[in-house]
């Protein structure tokens, strides 16, 4: 699992961490049942206050995304809630709306925006494929997000 923290951002650190773990759980990048680093480990890796990480884990547990098994570790929940996905989708739609507005401000008309969306879809698919290929070709790579390989 790969999480990065941007210092000095206008997004609070706890939200940065929570958003990234949540996105990885919901997108299936982290498969249900995968063990994730302990609070202590995560705090050390990111050089972030343990209480911050603890609060994030607690919040994600309350959202049924993580499953804390006492004395064992923290796992990606086996029952990822779909209601949660709807919330994320609403947020995504808001962001997309914002992007559409920005496009208009740049003078791109509706058909232009449609064309750009098609390109973006194609490009993201290509990028995902080449990433998977790179991982498949290099089994020795111990990248921290390779747990779901």
């Amino acid at each position: 699992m790969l999480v990065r923290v941007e210092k000095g951002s206008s997004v609070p650190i706890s939200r940065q961490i929570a958003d990234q773990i949540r996105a990885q759980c919901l997108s299936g990048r982290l498969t249900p049942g995968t063990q994730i680093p302990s609070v202590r480990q995560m705090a050390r890796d990111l050089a972030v206050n343990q209480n911050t990480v603890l609060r994030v884990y607690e919040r994600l547990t309350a959202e049924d995304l993580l499953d804390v098994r006492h004395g064992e570790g923290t796992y990606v929940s086996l029952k990822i809630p779909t209601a949660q996905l709807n919330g994320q989708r609403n947020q995504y739609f808001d962001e997309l709306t914002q992007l559409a507005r920005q496009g208009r401000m740049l003078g791109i008309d509706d058909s232009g925006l449609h064309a750009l969306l098609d390109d973006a879809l194609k490009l993201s698919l290509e990028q995902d494929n080449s990433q998977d290929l790179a991982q498949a070709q290099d089994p020795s790579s111990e990248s921290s997000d390779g747990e779901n390989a």
Partner: protein
Amino acid sequence: MTESVIEVKNVQKHFREKSVLDGLNMTVEKGQTFAFLGRNGAGKTTTIKMLMGLLKPDNGSLSVLGVDPLVDPIQVRRSVGYLAEDQAMFGWMKVEQLIRFIAPFYPTWDHKLAQQYVNQFELPLRTKVKHLSKGQSVRLGLLLALAHRPELVILDDPALGLDPIMRRDFNRDLVTHMQAEGRTVLYSSHLLYEVEPVADVIAILHDGKIVRHAPTENLRAQVKRIMTNTDAIARVGSKLNILDGRVTAGEVAVTVDNADEAIELLNREEIGYRVIDLNLDEIFEAFVVGQKDIRFELPEVEPAVQSA
């Protein structure tokens, strides 16, 4: 029930005519990582020296682990792990000599722990202190501050002069060697974004007083910039806790410290607004250089350009 480890009450301090602290109040609770922020010259080091019994306040009282540093400075220095700003150490000593020299000052010195830090911090024992890198000196200072297992650690701008990698390492040391052990930590800095990842509580020192003292997350949630119009500010401005305000191109930008209440008020009054999240530098700036009186920034006239 929370227990306070440091208590500062109404402390004043002048150097000649210059007032440095003017009624400073602060409390650090047990187990907290307390970030003490202020601009250069705000009085952070002065406060820390008073806590260590190295300076005397003109007025007011201080208590460190229940001891008055003025009455019993030795007791305070024995029980607190202290790292001074630009700690002057005996440069001609080798690292191992310095450790052996310092250890006897502390009744609770743990030689095993000191050895453990030497390994973890990768300190070269045979190198003279003056030949250590900046990062190594800070880590040696940390070793000396921590090896007597203090309940309270006071660090005066430990990240000063460290590069980004060393700062990150320092934050990591703080998380693993101090927070994980349940120690109380007070450390000063002038970089809000550096302390945010690790601090539980942030206090901003300005004009000789603490101007804001809050859990790190609250500070971010409560300090926001609100964009609205001049009529709105004329109506409700006096009810907002404004840190900084300016008018540009017909819009008013006010940085407020009670965003929840401000937003509620604007909604109730049916005033249109936009809320902008601020980064930590902007939050710090609002407290230390913000101007409460709303300034009007009139557009400057472009100088006429003569075509060639």
